[in-house]
């Protein structure tokens, strides 16, 4: 999806003082990307441990609720960090993200992943496999943004 309105918004955002500041300070984007990747690591590993428990592969000697209580808060508390660092990257290079079909796909995957992850307390193998696949897909899409 790429409309004229979106293009206009991107070029306006690019000219804002904040965007200019991010662009001219070379350390901002790599720093923010590093935090973004560390946050992704926290989410992905938490989802993995939860899913492996749901699939009965790891930690089956403990009740599901205990594993859920351990890892689900990590997922929810890390999402705002991902959002905040993501927004900084968007402001720094609006068109690279917003007008990019891979970024748009990533946001769709994210919505789906959040919906599925909200159901992760249910003892369902399908939800487990689906959530892990969606989060892995988000990582892939994230890296591919740089190439489109």
């Amino acid at each position, binding site marked *: 999806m790429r409309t004229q309105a979106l293009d206009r918004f991107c070029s306006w955002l690019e000219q804002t003082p904040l965007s200019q500041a991010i662009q001219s300070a070379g350390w901002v984007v*790599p720093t923010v990307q*590093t935090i973004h990747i560390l946050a992704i*690591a926290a989410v992905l590993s938490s989802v993995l*441990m939860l899913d492996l428990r749901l699939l009965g592969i790891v930690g089956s000697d403990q009740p599901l609720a205990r594993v859920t209580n351990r890892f689900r808060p990590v997922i929810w508390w890390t999402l705002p960090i991902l959002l905040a660092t993501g927004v900084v990257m968007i402001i720094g290079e609006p068109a690279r993200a917003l007008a990019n079909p891979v970024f748009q796909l990533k946001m769709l995957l994210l919505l789906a992943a959040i919906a599925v992850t909200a159901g992760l307390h249910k003892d369902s193998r399908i939800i487990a496999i689906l959530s892990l696949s969606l989060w892995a897909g988000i990582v892939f899409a994230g*890296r591919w943004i740089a190439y489109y």
Partner: protein
Amino acid sequence: MEIDALLRALEATGVAAAIRENESLFPWIESLHVLAITLVIGSIAIVDLRLIGLASLDRAAARLTSDVLPCTWAAFAGAVITGGLLFSSNAFNYAHNSCFQAKFVCLCLAGINMAVFHLGVGRAIAHWGASPQTTPLPARIAGAASLLLWIGVVAFGRWTGFTLHATPLVS
């Protein structure tokens, strides 16, 4: 220098040339590398935070470690293979990039830290029950050091992409 010749020879291999020349091969391998490395660091962080005493206190450290470490090693194997392939495509420039060198130093220090932990204080891990939840001070220090070193691996890895000006030209 002999190492430089070796690096150039690595670049000249068919696999390295294919990764360099094929437009989508590098991003695919890179995506797998990011996936693997996030799982490595995330799972190690679960153990580290338990050792420091900040998270998962309701699970004995030994139990939590055996839950997590198989995932860590599997992901680490994936990260090494994909990382090796990416490195081969541009071996000379990576090896001479100071951010990449720093990443490698962090990686080696993290390995040494882990070895020292397992051969030292970590041998008693089975005795650190779920209660009392505390771990000995050396274990907490090892956990904190591991966490910082792996953060360094990610940071220097990301900075490598921004400081490496030879092909590919994408960060």
